[in-house]
């Protein structure tokens, strides 16, 4: 399951090795490069030509291009992943060598011009900037590039992109002077000359058209800069007239590296961060087809192979629709065994009346017009055939069989050895009763992976197992509940793609066979949706986790409309679905209450959806917080006091005042020393104040105090991050955390926060 991720890592480390293997070459290159002091040369040119107002249009456009380029680059912190290509490097070397030969006679401007021109020729066959993956796979040559050179080259590029409009003239001048240096001499590039800088990005053609585009709407691009930077750009300092003279500062900078940094790949160090992604999904879409073989065995062991009626059902759709009511009455039978385990089944006649009241209230839903027509025809033509297009039926099936596995145990095996790993005992799908009881047991012990697996087994028993997707089936209250639990757990485990895959056959949860009316023989007289409301919420929320919050909002709006309509119906004295049913006053009240709370739940989800867009509007936040403070002032309870302090702390955080924020978090701890949030947040503030050790002490103290409660993913993540920052021997401390986690957490624990991988 984890193989995907680790493969990627392997690939990466392999490339690192190549880097170091290349060290000799690189070292010589470094020698040359540092001798030349290209960065400062650039600085000179920048100063002499950086007449900032003149070239705004094209400059801006270059920046734009730069931006696009950079976005593909910046994803990784790794110094090796740059957009530069082999060609450029070759050129640079050439320049450097040539420079030496000419005994540093050239002016700074010329140097960068050359670099620039050669870039031009080389980039012509270089269509797009390389992204990380490409570097890793197809272009080994580029891997050999040394990061330092990249840095230097980038300086060059930067320089090139500044004094744009002067460049063409300079090129003309420089060409006759040193024709040898340019690989591009064979290829004249007249078309690129007007604003040749842009050819760095191999988009010379656009350059000419783009400024016109800007002019077209009359808007003039403006250069933006940091307010305090004005002195540098606006008034070029010309007090630095030396030309190729290596600046002492830089030779000190880079010259020494040759001595101290023997490993070239060490040149750029990575910032202490880690690729912890709490919403990522390492297991998604892998491990799907592999488990196919195991299904049949699970299916057999727990239950007989699918009921023959299903194959009849299959034939039915092919034949075009013989009476479906016939099989419907039979099909749910094989599931009844499991159903019996489920407490609260509607079998007792005494409670039947009461139950139906509850059922109606809870199951109420408003189908779409089309679905409603189908349901009406099913109800009215019970004994004749109702033709339903296969497309309108819900035919779910497991899309992957087994996501079982205990990542904590895997890590223990890897880092703590077999002996320690043996001690790790968690429940799995086999160790519990194959029923709803066992399922609940797995959920409450936080073994959600096992629970997903058990849901799968129970669904397989119901004939909706692996590979059954697309085959006609029948739904029961329980099968849909199982689907809900399975999908909910997948979402909880951040396995969003898996959830999406299995949700797909359910469509928009409005197909006729998802309503009780569709099964008049199995559920006589029962009306409404078999799909639990919570499953609709889940369905609506899912797209936002997959990067489509707009779709989520749309779905939630749809749900909101139905909820409001149902409430409206109730207020008008009708039943939830708008029919003229007599409802006792207290039941009506209960129903209104239920649907209000459901509407509230939808609103919460909408708020979450909007929260996916993080906002930094302090002023509005401040206003809200003040309102809350006013409202809670009268309450004067401890709880409200904490809330007020917490809000104040966050306000200070928003204003970059970590010291004050820390003060408020600490104050909360004085009131409630076990407040996990305040504890953790105070520790985070301490780190931002430069007090790493204090911060660690606070977090460690908190975890030791009550590991059961505080060994939370977020706390652990902070703790491991600080361990990494603290020392190069963070591994042992992380492993200690792993041991602590192993005692407490189930298989659903997100091991990424331990940063052991």
């Amino acid at each position, binding site marked *: 399951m984890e193989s995907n991720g680790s493969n990627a890592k392997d690939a990466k480390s392999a490339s690192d090795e190549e880097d170091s293997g290349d060290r000799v070459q690189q070292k010589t290159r470094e020698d040359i490069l540092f001798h030349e002091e290209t960065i400062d040369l650039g600085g000179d040119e920048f100063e002499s030509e950086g007449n900032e107002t003149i070239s705004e249009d094209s400059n801006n456009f270059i920046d734009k291009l730069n*931006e696009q380029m950079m976005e593909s680059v910046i994803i990784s912190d790794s110094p090796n992943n740059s957009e530069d290509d082999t060609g450029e490097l070759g050129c640079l070397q050439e320049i450097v060598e040539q420079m030496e030969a000419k005994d540093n006679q050239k002016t700074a401007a010329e140097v960068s011009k050359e670099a620039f021109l050669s870039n031009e020729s080389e980039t012509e066959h270089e269509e797009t900037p390389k992204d990380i993956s490409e570097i890793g796979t197809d272009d080994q040559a580029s891997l050999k590039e040394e990061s330092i050179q990249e*840095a230097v080259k980038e300086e060059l590029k930067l320089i090139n992109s500044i004094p744009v409009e002067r460049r063409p003239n300079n090129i003309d001048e420089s060409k006759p002077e040193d024709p040898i240096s340019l690989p591009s001499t064979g290829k004249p590039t007249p078309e690129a000359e007007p604003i040749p800088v842009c050819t760095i990005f191999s988009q010379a053609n656009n350059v000419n058209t783009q400024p016109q585009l800007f002019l077209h709407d009359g808007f003039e691009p403006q250069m933006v800069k940091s307010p305090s930077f004005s002195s540098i750009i606006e008034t070029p300092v010309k007090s630095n007239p030396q030309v190729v003279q290596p600046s002492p500062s830089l030779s000190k900078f880079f010259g020494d590296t040759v001595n101290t940094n023997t490993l070239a790949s060490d040149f750029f*160090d990575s910032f202490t961060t880690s690729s912890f992604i*709490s919403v990522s999904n390492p297991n998604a879409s892998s491990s799907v087809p592999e488990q196919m073989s195991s299904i049949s065995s699970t299916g057999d062991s727990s239950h007989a192979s699918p009921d023959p009626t299903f194959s009849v059902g299959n034939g039915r759709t092919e034949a075009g629709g013989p009476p479906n009511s016939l099989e419907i009455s039979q099909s749910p039978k094989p599931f009844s065994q499991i159903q019996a385990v489920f407490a609260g089944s509607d079998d007792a006649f005494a409670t039947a009346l009461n139950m139906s009241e509850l059922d109606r209230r809870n199951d109420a839903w408003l189908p779409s017009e089309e679905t409603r027509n189908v349901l009406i025809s099913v109800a009215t033509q019970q004994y004749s055939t109702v033709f339903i297009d296969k497309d309108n039926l819900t035919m779910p099936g497991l899309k992957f069989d087994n996501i079982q596995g205990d990542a904590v145990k895997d890590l223990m095996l890897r880092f703590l050895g077999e002996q320690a790993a043996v001690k790790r005992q968690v429940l799995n799908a086999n160790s519990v009763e194959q029923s709803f009881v066992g399922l609940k047991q797995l959920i409450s012990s936080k073994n959600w992976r096992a629970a997903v697996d058990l849901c799968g087994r129970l669904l397989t028993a119901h004939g909706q197992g692996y590979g059954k997707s697309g085959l006609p089936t029948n739904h029961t209250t329980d099968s849909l509940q199982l689907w809900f639990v399975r999908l909910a757990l997948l979402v909880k485990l951040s396995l969003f793609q898996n959830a999406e895959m299995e949700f797909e056959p359910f469509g928009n949860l409005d197909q006729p066979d998802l309503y009780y009316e569709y099964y008049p023989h199995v559920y006589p007289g029962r009306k409404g949706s078999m799909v639990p409301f919570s499953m609709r919420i889940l369905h609506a929320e899912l797209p936002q986790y997959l990067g489509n919050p707009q779709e989520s909002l749309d779905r939630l709006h749809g749900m909101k409309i139905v909820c409001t309509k149902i409430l409206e119906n109730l207020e008008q004295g009708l039943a939830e679905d708008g029919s003229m049913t007599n409802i006792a006053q207290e039941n009506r009240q209960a129903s209104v209450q239920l649907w209000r709370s459901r509407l509230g739940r939808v609103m*919460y989800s909408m708020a979450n959806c909007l929260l996916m867009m993080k906002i930094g509007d302090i002023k509005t936040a401040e206003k809200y917080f003040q309102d809350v403070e006013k409202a809670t002032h009268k309450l004067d309870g401890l709880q409200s006091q904490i809330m007020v302090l917490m809000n104040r702390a966050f306000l200070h955080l928003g204003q970059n005042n970590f010291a004050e924020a820390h003060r408020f978090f600490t104050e909360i701890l004085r009131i409630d020393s076990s407040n996990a949030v305040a504890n953790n947040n105070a520790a985070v503030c301490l780190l931002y104040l*430069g007090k790493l050790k204090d911060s660690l002490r606070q977090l460690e103290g908190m975890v030791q105090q009550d590991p059961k409660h505080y060994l939370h993913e977020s706390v652990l993540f902070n703790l491991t991050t600080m361990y990494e920052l603290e020392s190069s021997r963070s591994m042992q401390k992380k492993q200690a955390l792993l041991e602590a986690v192993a005692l407490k957490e189930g298989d659903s624990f997100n091991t990424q926060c331990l940063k052991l991988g």
Partner: protein
Amino acid sequence: MDVNQPKQEHLLALKVMRLTKPTLFTNIPVTCEERDLPGNLFNQLMKDDPSTVNGAETLMLGEMLTLPQNFGNIFLGETFSSYISVHNDSNQIVKDILVKADLQTSSQRLNLSASSAAVAELKPDCCIDDVIHHEVKEIGTHILVCAVSYTTQMGEKMYFRKFFKFQVLKPLDVKTKFYNAETDEVFLEAQIQNITTSPMFMEKVSLEPSIMYNVAELNTVDTAGERASTFGSRTHLQPMDTRQYLYCLKPKQEFAEKAGVIKGVTVIGKLDIVWKTNLGERGRLQTSQLQRMAPGYGDVRLSLETIPDTVNLEEPFDITCKITNCSERTMDLVLEMCNTNSIHWCGVSGRQLGKLHPSSSLHLALTLLSSVQGLQSVSGLRLTDTFLKRTYEYDDIAQVCVISSEVKKES
């Protein structure tokens, strides 16, 4: 060149972490109802989770802060903060530790260390901490260079450095457009586009006018005494979204008077933009001085000072013109008034206006009437400079609505 030279083991370890703003831990709320299969299990699990907000467990965003998870992006105008920690990994005391942090940009090198004093000694398992801040002022490659020097117990001087490279990107794209009004006012339209990948809250976008102008912001609408933003209540700017700001600039009286007209390229001012992103991460940028080309008025400018909106058919009305000499020489002007199909000038055509010095102006009251109803264009004024024998034509100076006098009486 010894390639296989063993990598030197240092007693100290240097760790650097960029301190972007912490993020709030988000959990994935999954709820169910009492009657669903898991009963209250899901809800209970969420209640027990310390990262959820008490009483609002369904809210995705908790209050738990988490440290930055990756380097992230850094944009021009933002502040680069970094934690620098030097830790003694060895079991011996290390002396005279000096930690230096410099930032190398394409044009300069900055020292970012808070103090340059050496630390006398560092015990095993202790660390020297520093948090550096730097407001990023340049686009492109930046290299953070951290140098550590120290003396071992044996008296050996040790030294090592680490280099951290990062790219500074441009967060905003700003485009401007000027409109010159007849009245010397200048309207500035500025389009600000968020070219980052995350939403921005625009805290402030203002135009700082140059000394020649006063500015009025036209980005709020007064409704019932409350100034509502034209952008509505949505205060944030989504990635790639553009917002259009409008400003009206009026030349200050003294400049308008002194120079007669504002000619050529003038500096209008600059836009000052402050935004915030994640948890109040702040950024600020300014544009360079915005310049506009003042419209050319030729040698003589004729502008209208007063004119009625509506006049009666065939009834004379008065207008006041202002004639300004925009040239560098003195002019001797003659005014001619030519009737058009609808406009009839009253008074003598070909009258001498006298000498007009450069940058000076004179006011002229004229009387005319219209013989046609409807919206009529005031045209037909001719000024001739007798020195150069050059004639300037002024047509379509203004429009006036001509109505029948009977209609007016009725109303």
